[in-house]
Each structure stands twice: as C-alpha cells, then as structure tokens.
C-alpha cells in the first residue's frame, strides 16, 4: 500500500472534489500520502453531502429536543413517540442532481433511499410525500423532467407498496437548470423495537445484505456536491438505477430478521455506499471495522477495491448480527432470494481496514474519518431587506372574479391531480385524507389515532427574505397540520440552496436556518431529521433558496379530522386571523402585474400559535365543519378551493373597508384559516375568538347554487372554476404551450 512515490497528483485531488488544504489535512491525519482507495474513501466521507461541512455550525442551532422526541438528527431518520408504545420514524432527503441528469432513475432512487432510511430503523413505511420544483414551463427541458420525475417517484413507490399521500409541485425559471426532488418517507415501529447504526461487541460479524454491488453511482455523493456546468448529461453514469422489487424483498427480509432478534446494528448503504455505512457503524460504536472485499457480492467481475468502496448500487444493507443467530438470518435472506455475505468484523482498535486480493488497500483511523472532516464557517452576507410593497401602489387592472379565474389556471396554483394520480395513494387501506387537501391523514393501524403529514416551503419568500421565508415554511407546515385537526409534533428539513462558497448564498442558508430555528422553537415543533443539498446551480445561476419542511402531526381520533370541502349550504364562513392585504411577493403581484418584488408577508409566531390553537380546538369539538389554511394566492383562492372540493357555492360579503379590494382577496397575510360553522354556532365561535384574542371576520355563507358570488358581480359557476383549475397541467403535459 505504501509506495515511495505518491501517485496522488493535484489533478487527482481536484477530481475527488477535495481542496489542496483538505488534502493536507488528510496527510496530517494519517501521517503519509493516502492510497488511491483511501483518497476515494476520504472524498466520499468529506464531501458536502456526507459531511455537512458548510452547514454544520448553523444546523447546531436548530431545536431538536421535545417531549415526543426519541431520536433527533444523526441517525438514519428521526423518531418521535405517538403514545401506546408506538413511534413514528421519518425523514426527507433530496435527489436533485441525479434527477436532473436522469429524471426517472434519479427520482426513483431518491424514493428508494429514503424508504431504506426508515425501514433500517425497524419501521414499516406507511406513507411517502415529496416536494418537487421545476423550471419555467416554457423551458425546453421542463416537460420531460416533470414527466420523468413523476413517473420515477410513482414507479418506485407503487411497486414497493407504500402510499404516496401528499406533496407539493412548483415552477420557476430559477430551477431551469436544476430541478428539486425532495422525497419524504414515514414509518411506524414499536417504540421498544427501534434499531440503530452503532455496532457493539468486538469480533462480531458484519454482514452484507441485499442486491449485488455494481459500477453504478460511483462518486454519486461527490457529484451531488458540485454545481453543474455545460454537459451535465455526461454525468449520467454517476446516477444509480433503482429496483423497487429488490427493495420490497429487502424490507420484508429485514423486518423478519429484526423480529427474530438477529440484529445488533444496521445501516443502509446510501450515499457513498459501503464506505459510509461501514465507517458509521464502527465510529458510532467506538469500534474498528475490517472489511474483506473479496467477499462482497458483485454484479460483474473485475471490480477494483476503489469501485467497490464508492459504488452507490441500490437496495443494499450492512448489519452487525448476533453471532448465534447468523444461520437463522441467512436462511431468511435466502428465502427472499437476496444476497447474504459476511464481509468483515468489528475490531477493538478503531481502525478502518479494507483488504482486497491479499492486500490492505486502506488502513485509516475510523473516528477521524467522520469527526475530523473539515467544518467551515463560510463567510456570508445577509440578504438585504427588501422594500415593502404597499397595496395601494399595486394596480387592480381586472375585476376580482376575472383574477380568480386567471390565477386558478396558473402553474403554481392549478390542480396537481395529473401528478398525484400517478402515485398509488390508497394502498395499505389506511389513507383517510388523500392528496389535494391541506395535509394527508393516514390511520394508525386500526385507529383511532391518525397521522397528518405535509411538505411546505414558499421559495420566493425565502429569496426575498430568508429569515421570514424560513419561518414561513415552518409556520405553513404547522398550519396545514392544524387545519386537519392534528397536533403538530415534529419536522424534517430539506435545505436546498446554491453554492455555499458564495457569501450571498451562504447568507440565504444562514438566514433560513435562523428562521426555521425561531419558528420551531416558538411552535414547539422540533427538527428530528434532515438533509442539506448545496451547489444547486448551473453555470453560476443558483436556484431559489428552498428549505422544504416536512411536518408530522397526531390526531387522537382520525374520524374527527377536518377537510377543506364545504359541507352544507347556508353555513357561516368565517375567517380567523388578521388581513392587512399583503401583496409583496404574492402570486397576484407576479401573475397579474408581472412583478416579483417586495418583502414577503411577515410571520407573527405568537399569532400563528394563538389562531392555530383555536382552530384545532374547534375541529376537536366538532364545531368547525370545514377548514382550510390561507396560503399561496390568498383568501379567494382558499375559498374557491373549498367550493371546488365540494361542488357547493358561497355568497360572499364585501371586502374589509380599510383594505383595497384586490389586496383583501389576494393578499398573502399569514396565520389565517377559513372555517365554516353551522349558523347557530357562529355567535359562540365569535365570542371564543374574541376571548382568545383571535381576529375573526364573517366572510359570507355557503350556498347550494353551485356558484361563487362576490358582491356586485355575476355568480361564477364552481364548475367553471374546476375546469380552469384542472385544465392547465394535463394540457401542458399533452404539449400545449407553457
């Protein structure tokens, strides 16, 4: 392994994504030049994707503890308690770069990876969600990316057999060269049967399970840690190929051997494959690991040690087994037709030793591989505060009804049915609220408990003001869970940003994390898992900062969950929360006036909490008959969605006196909900709102005439709105102009 003349050239170091300083740090740590395999191992462990070197100092500021938290960040996924000895395991992770290069497989393996993170901990996956962002619909690649990504997510989840119950889809020209695919998985496990990565015991066998190792995905994590230039398509060989069938077998086999008590520790092979999984198992258990690569099941002959250590072939696991249970575990894996091989053992000396064809190709200090990864306090400049756009300075060129019809047919606000109908959202027979509402609701086992889930972020707010945007993403997730009647419990965050070596991008990241931390703190909504995806840029142009928040909440009785559809004619429609008519960064300003500017709506976390707590109480007591949070597009969009979901109409009162009409209906003020109640209950609800200090306004009544009627305007048939709402995406995908 040691040779007199180092073969490591500056070019080779650069190709591995390491800086000269980082290379010197490696030499200092091990006291010599590394072998080529060792260099590969360091590059895998020290890239941005695996080491969080640019974000770590800031991520530490996030609140991660709370009464429900069993496991915070640092494991394969976060774990929270939902009582009755049940725990929920969940995490969201990006697969942005691979999905842009090869949309179907990139998105599919994104889903596969996050599912493995969840069942590695012993949980059976019960739901998937996602958050997708694509470029301008008019961009020549957008249509094929939407088509491939959606098919890939569906192709994997549908075959694996987990319902994909929710998500979000948005479009913006800033994602032209870099789409976002954030996949979230949620699983259920007995709280006393959770499995972790830390190995215990010296001399225990390390077992390789699952599919064979091939030459796919080599340096995938490094690729995901660099920005794109011209010719990104040439990186296709770095994208892995998914096999949901093998993953389904792996799930069943893993859960079976876990139930039989065979497993001490388990780690899935995700980013940086065998390297990262073996190092983490050893390092977390304060043990060394020796691997014998000649035992690794390979798809093809002639793979080098370097290739085996860096392959990101999918559907593979590494486990430490109870030695006395090895034969039993092997029999279970053989039954499922999966590979099973003892490829190494734990050692007392905290070294990571890799042997191949009689040579030692790597001999490294195992703790330092992870712990001594560089940590950067990268310089940053805060995003300058944008000017506030006053509603009175925003023109109102069209009647309110015409604006409504136009906005419902825009890419961001239109129905995403074309997308979610390609996902099996009913398998497992527990989906209480399907896609299309504020949050998805899934029954826990036979009930009565239910789990609510959502993914949220408003990137244009984050671009204008990262701090407020970060707060808003958390607040909206909290609000969406509240709107179905759930008590928000915890979040996973997926931070998608540009190149952190640019101070203004780093400023966005720092600001957004600060906003997330503030909101999570104020709303008792801890972060239990997450993922950071940086270098989302192409040819120097970064994406909009997109810190996606995946929220999970608990409903004690799923049958009491609220939906957004109006329930009956002649009910009172109430607005909870204050309307100031905030048009800065609104959909209205962009779509009607062609302006993307101004400060985003400020988030008042105390008001969020106060208003949300009242809404949740009204749902729990069965007083609220329909509930919808007010978000993108504003109040009239929310009302139209409630009408469209039911077929019922509404007769609306005039806008508030002190707010311009267009700002009243289309402003995007936060902390607001539309709630319907029976007429005889309206007075009592108003009294309660007053007592709680929650601003309340009567908006009108539901009606059986199937039309939305604004004051002094002709009724708009709900069926017309539905046509507008449903038409854009299928039309676009069928080839109509974006």
């Amino acid at each position, binding site marked *: 392994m040691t040779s007199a003349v180092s073969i490591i050239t500056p070019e080779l170091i650069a190709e591995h994504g390491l800086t000269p300083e980082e290379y010197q740090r490696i030499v200092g740590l091990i006291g010599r030049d590394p072998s080529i395999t060792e260099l590969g191992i360091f590059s895998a462990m020290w890239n941005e994707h695996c080491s969080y070197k640019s974000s770590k100092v800031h991520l530490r500021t996030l609140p991660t503890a709370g009464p429900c938290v069993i496991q915070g960040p640092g494991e394969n996924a976060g774990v929270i308690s939902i009582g009755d000895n049940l725990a929920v395991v969940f995490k969201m992770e990006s697969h942005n770069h691979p999905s842009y290069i090869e949309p179907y497989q990139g998105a599919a393996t994104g889903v596969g990876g996050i599912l493995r993170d969840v069942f590695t901990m012993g949980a059976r996956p019960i739901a998937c969600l996602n958050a997708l962002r694509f470029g301008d619909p008019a961009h020549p690649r957008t249509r094929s990316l939407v088509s491939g990504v959606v*098919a890939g997510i569906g192709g994997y989840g549908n*075959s694996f*057999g987990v319902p994909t119950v929710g998500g979000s889809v948005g479009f913006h020209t800033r994602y032209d060269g870099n789409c976002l695919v954030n996949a979230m998985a949620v699983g259920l496990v007995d709280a006393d049967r959770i499995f972790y990565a830390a190995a215990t015991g010296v001399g225990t066998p390390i077992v390789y399970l699952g599919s064979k190792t091939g030459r796919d995905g080599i340096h995938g994590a490094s690729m995901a840690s660099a920005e794109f230039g011209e010719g990104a398509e040439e990186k296709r060989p770095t994208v892995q190929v998914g096999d949901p*069938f093998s993953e*389904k077998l792996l799930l069943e086999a893993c859960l079976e051997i876990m139930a039989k008590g065979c497993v001490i520790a388990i780690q899935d092979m995700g980013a940086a494959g065998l390297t990262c999984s073996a190092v983490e198992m050893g390092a977390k258990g304060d043990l060394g690991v020796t691997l014998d690569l000649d035992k690794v099941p390979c798809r093809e002959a002639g793979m080098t040690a370097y290739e085996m250590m860096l392959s990101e072939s999918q559907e593979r696991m590494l486990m430490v087994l109870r030695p006395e249970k090895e034969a039993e575990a092997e029999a279970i894996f053989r039954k499922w037709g999966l590979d099973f091989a003892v490829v190494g053992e734990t050692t007392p000396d905290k070294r990571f030793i890799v042997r191949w064809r009689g040579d030692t190709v790597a001999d490294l200090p195992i703790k330092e591989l992870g712990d001594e990864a560089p940590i950067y306090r990268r310089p940053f400049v805060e995003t300058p505060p944008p000017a506030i756009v006053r509603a009175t300075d925003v023109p109102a060129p069209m009647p309110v009804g015409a604006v409504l019809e136009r906005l419902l047919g825009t890419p961001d606000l239109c129905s995403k049915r074309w997308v979610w109908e*390609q996902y099996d959202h*009913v398998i*497992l027979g*527990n989906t209480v609220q399907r896609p299309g509402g504020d949050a998805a609701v899934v029954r826990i086992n036979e009930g009565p408990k239910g789990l609510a889930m959502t993914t949220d972020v408003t990137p244009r707010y984050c671009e204008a003001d990262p701090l407020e945007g970060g707060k808003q993403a958390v607040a909206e997730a909290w609000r969406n869970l509240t709107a179905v009647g759930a008590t928000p419990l915890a979040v996973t965050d997926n931070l998608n940003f540009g190149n952190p070596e640019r101070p203004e991008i780093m400023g966005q990241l720092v600001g957004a994390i600060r906003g997330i931390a503030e909101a999570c703190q104020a709303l008792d909504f801890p972060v239990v898992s997450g993922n950071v995806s940086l270098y989302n840029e192409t040819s120097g142009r970064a994406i909009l900062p997109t810190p996606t928040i995946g929220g999970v909440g608990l409903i004690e009785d799923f049958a009491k969950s609220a939906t957004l559809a109006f329930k009956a004619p002649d009910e009172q429609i109430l607005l909870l929360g204050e309307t100031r008519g905030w048009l800065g960064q609104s959909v209205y300003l962009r779509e009607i006036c062609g302006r993307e500017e101004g400060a985003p709506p400020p988030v008042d976390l105390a008001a969020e909490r106060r208003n949300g707590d009242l809404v949740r109480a009204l749902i729990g007591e069965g007083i609220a008959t329909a509930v919808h949070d007010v978000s993108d597009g504003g109040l009239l969009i929310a009302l139209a969605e409630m009408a469209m979901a039911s077929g019922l109409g509404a007769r609306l009162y005039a806008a508030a006196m002190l707010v311009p009409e267009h700002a009243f209906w289309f402003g995007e003020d936060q902390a607001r909900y539309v709630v319907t109640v029976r007429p005889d209950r309206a007075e009592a609800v108003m009294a309660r709102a007053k007592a709680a200090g929650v601003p309340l306004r009567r908006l009108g009544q539901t009606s059986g005439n199937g039309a939305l009627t604004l004051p002094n305007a002709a009724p708009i048939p709900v069926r017309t709105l539905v046509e507008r709402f449903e038409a854009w995406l299928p039309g676009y995908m069928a080839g109509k102009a974006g």
Partner: protein
Amino acid sequence: MKSAVIVFPGSNRERDVARALELVSGREPALLWHADTGLPAGTDLVVLPGGFSYGDYLRCGAIAAQAPIMEAVRNHAGRGGLVVGICNGFQILCEAGLLPGVLLRNSGLRFICRDVHLRIERSDTPFTRGYNAGQVIRVPVAHGEGNYFAHPATISRLESEGRVLFRYTAPDGSLDPRHNVNGASNAIAGVLSEKLNVLGLMPHPENHVDPAVGSTDGRGLFAGLVAHFAAAA
C-alpha cells in the same frame, strides 16, 4: 369461509386483501408463499393479490404464472373451486391461462390511481350475490397495465356467455368512454372463466371496505362470497 392469499415476491396488496377478508368473514386467511406447493385442506377461496410480482420486469404476471404454487391454484380451479385475482392477480390469471385475454398498458400510457365507478353486470354469481345487477359501486384502481384486451371473437363470446362481471361506467351506470379509465375493450373491468368460478378484476374492492377510509362499496364482493359458502354449508 376458509380463504388463502398467495404471496409472490413483489406482491404488495396481500395485507390489504387479507384484512378485508378477515373483517368481512371474521376469519383470518392463510398466507401462502409462492414456493409452496399445496393449499391448506378445505380451502374454499384462493386470492391472488395485487402488486408487482417478481417486479413485473417481464410481462406483468408472466413469471408468477409459472410459480410452484400455481399448480395447486390450477387444480383448485379445475375442481370448480373459487379463485379471485385482483390487479396483478388478474394479470397472473390471464398469463396462467385460467382467464382469457391480456392486460395491456393503460391507453393513457401512465399509471393511474383514482376512484372509478363499476357497474355490476349480474348478481347471480358467488362473487356478486352481495350486489344487485345494474348496481354501481365506487372503488379505486391503481395500475399501469389494466387495459383488458382479447380477440374480438373472444370478447363476443365473453359477452354472450355473461362472463363480463364488472364494467367501467359513469356514476349513473351509463357507458361513457371518458370513464373507461384504461381504455379496456368494452370497458371490461372484470371477467369470469368459462365455469364462472374464476374471477379477475383490475379495481381494488379490498381498499373500500371501511367507512372511515374511502367507502364500503367493496364489501359486497367479500360479503357475497361469505354468504355463498354459508349457503353451501
């Protein structure tokens, strides 16, 4: 009613259908592995569940049709025993030659998951005695290859022999191409074998057996089977 659900590698709705069977019949079905070679003694009903058996990497259902357990399923059907194949199970029954025809890719070329309306074409079978002829039920579909196709002569024969059991229709039961979710010949959603004892259908009645989750429109299939065996006993 004593039922057995066959689990192939890649099946993924076996738990859904087992849960529906237990809920309606009060009796837990046996779960059999593809490598098994016999059915438990006294099995009344065999169910082939939905999923992606063997990944569906070859033609859907083609490999499962050759699995060891299928000989026992064939023998059961040959004795006049009842067999239901749902979704991938339907595809397997066609590949195994227990039902005529094939399931092509959906006419829209995309996987589709949504509630559809089915018209019950006759109620005098063990599978539909829980419904009325002409009744319309709402149940979900979730498939990429559910477009039923057969030689026109075969389709005519199926029609004339009353072997089309379920058809995709509008909510009012009328035939409407817009509601033929996958472009199936004659909007066929489910067919019977010659002796009327083997049923294949694409939709998932097992996912609509609970008022809290979707609807209870799918219950009739399972309740009808329970009634059938209760009457036979």
